[in-house]
Each structure stands twice: as C-alpha cells, then as structure tokens.
C-alpha cells in the first residue's frame, strides 16, 4: 500500500515540476511533509544532501524519501514515478510535435523562450552562489567561500587563456571539492 502512495505522490511531482529539479524540491517538500515519520529537520537535511551528492537533485530526493519510507523498493518506485511523466512527454514531443519546430510560428516562440530559459538558469546559479557565500545565519559573508570562488575563477581563467576553451565541467567540479578541502584546512 505504501508503494502505491509513494508512486502516486512522486508521479504528481514529476508531472508538475516544470523547469527542473529546484521546482521539484518545493513540491517534494510539500508532498513529504507529515508523510511517514520524517521530521522537518531531517527534511531540510535530506534536501541539502540531495543537492550536494551526485545525480540529479530530483532523483536524489526521490531515492532518499523512497528509501526512508519504503526501503530499496520504495526508492525504485519513487524514482520511476518521478521520471515517468517527463519520459512520456518528451517522447510524445519528439514523435509528434518536433516536426513543427521549423514552422515560423514555433521558431518565433523559440526565440523568446530560449532567452527566458537561460535567464532562469542564470538566476538559479546566482542564487546558489549567494547562498554559498553567506553561510552564517547573520548574513555575513563567508570568507572561506569567497576564497574558494576566487580560486575557481582563477583556475578557469588561466585554463581558458592557455587553451582557448573552458575548463570542462567534471574536472572543475572535482577541483571545487579539492579547493573546498584545502581551504577547509586553513585556520
């Protein structure tokens, strides 16, 4: 029975989380509040961990909550349920709607939707950065975080100047972890 509820809840999240993982987080939070025996504190922790661990945020959260409420099978069900609407919709889009992509109406729509999407993505990055910069509750700026950011910017810039390309994503993420560790050992 719990599997059914889990499936249903995460299916809904998958259906309504437009714009990606961060929307899904809000929906999952609502959906999981009071469900099973997850207190509010643990809820926030799980959300934070989902953002820090590898894998898409929404999938991580589905796995976490699925596990907590229904064990490994719960994890599978929640993950499957959250992925299903997206999977079906994308396939339907490619099969039936993609051919209209070249019509001038659709092209016109794309020219406004694309910058809108990029703006949304940029805003997510900015907010995430600021959240990381001000770790203290009082809103003061975290010096270590700034240090890490500067090192990252330097690394990317130096690489770009020497190779004319951006530092690829995966190495950059690993460096980030490394710098975090290094800066963490200071003081």
């Amino acid at each position, binding site marked *: 029975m719990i599997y059914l509820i889990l499936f249903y809840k995460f299916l809904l999240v*998958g*259906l*309504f989380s*437009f*714009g*990606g*993982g*961060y929307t899904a987080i809000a929906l999952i939070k609502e959906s999981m509040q009071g469900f099973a025996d997850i207190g509010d504190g643990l809820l926030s*922790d*799980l959300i934070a*961990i*989902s*953002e820090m*661990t*590898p*894998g*898409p*945020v*929404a*999938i*991580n959260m589905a*796995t976490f909550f699925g*596990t907590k409420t229904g064990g*490994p099978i719960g*994890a599978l069900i929640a*993950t499957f349920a*959250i992925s299903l609407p*997206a*999977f079906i*919709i*994308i396939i339907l*889009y490619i099969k039936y709607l993609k051919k209209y*992509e*070249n019509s*001038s*109406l659709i092209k*016109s729509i*794309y*020219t406004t*939707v*694309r*910058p*809108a*999407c*990029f*703006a949304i*993505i*940029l805003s*997510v990055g900015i*907010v*995430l950065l600021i959240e*990381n910069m001000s770790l203290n509750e009082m809103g003061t700026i975290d010096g*270590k975080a700034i240090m890490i950011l500067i090192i990252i910017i330097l690394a990317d810039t130096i690489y770009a100047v020497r190779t004319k390309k*951006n530092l690829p*994503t*995966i190495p950059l993420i690993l460096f980030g972890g490394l*710098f*975090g*560790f290094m800066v*963490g050992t200071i003081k």
Partner: protein
Amino acid sequence: MLLKLFSKFFKIGLFTFGGGYAMISIVKDEFVSKEKYVSDEEFMNLIAVAEATPGPIAINMATYIGYKVKGMIGAIVATIGVVLPSLIIIYIISLFIIEVLKIKVVTDIFIGISIAVAYIIIRTALSLMRKEMTISDNKIITSIVFLAVLIIALLTDFLSININVIFLIFASIILGIIIYFVNKCCRKNGGENSTGNGSGSKENINGSKEVTR
C-alpha cells in the same frame, strides 16, 4: 552504440552535482562538443523543451538525446543510465547520512563542490546566452526578454515569492506568439519592422494596405 549511450549517461549521472543545470554543461561537453550528436542550435532548443516540460531536466535531456540517437530503446537506456548512479549512491548514503555529515572533511568538500556548481551554472547560462545573441535575428527582443526574466526570477527568489517557473516560460511563449503575428502584419506593410524570421514566408494574397499602428 547502446552501451556507449548508457555509459555516457551513467557518467553524466555520476558527476551531476547540484542538479540538472550543472548537467547541461556536462551534456554539452559529451554530446555537442565531443561527439556532435546534437548541433548547438538543437541543443539550445532541447534546453528550452526540457525547461518547459515537467520533470527533472536530467530526465528530459536523457530521454530526448537517447531517443534521437537510438529511438525508444535509446531513450530508455539513456534515462536508466542517468538515474542509476543516483539510485545506488543515494541508497548507500541514506543508510548512514547522519554520520557522514558529521565528518568535517566531507562538508568542506561539499561546500567546494557547491560553489563550483554555482559557478558552472552561471558560466553555462552566460555562454548559452552569448550563442543566442549570435544567432538571434532580433537582438533587442532577445536581450529584453533575457533581462526581464532574469530580474523577475531574482526578485522572486530574494523576496521568497514562490512563482512556478512555468509562468515565466508561459509568458515568453505568449510573447513569441505575439511577435509572430506582429511580424506577419508588418510584412504586409513593407517589412520594415520584420525580425527576419525568413522561413517559409507565405505570400500575402490580400495585400491590404491600411494597417493602423
């Protein structure tokens, strides 16, 4: 080929820290820059589709590219590939998260990763926008939409207003439709204000001259 698809998306799933937006950057590395399965422009459309449709961006992208490369089976393989690392790792972690979080080294590393991810997301968005500006027929509209949505998105975040992203996308769709019709009507007028969406323009049969502006 399927194995390659699976392993690429497994790798993507493994290194996507901080969500689908960071993943965009990795997908670009793997499928646009390295292998050219997807062209730059199609990639940007893909992102728009992924953003406008529900569900985690990671799933949308994996399904889309998987389907493009190898049909239905490709879509399934890619999606499973991107989801699997998360399932395995998170399941293991969930067994003892509290203990893991208490280790300072772990939190230090994660903070570094989080900052790197934020930087990557910003970098990706800016480079996509740069590309958009080069292919845009009407740079003014492109810039205005970008800035407007950016400001609204930032404001709603900082003021903790919960606006579902879909509203912004919906508004931009409406704007796109409006511009399309404005274009059609202006072309009848001699096309001074045309944004140059020059594909398949229909001949104007009625040739009406009186259009009040």
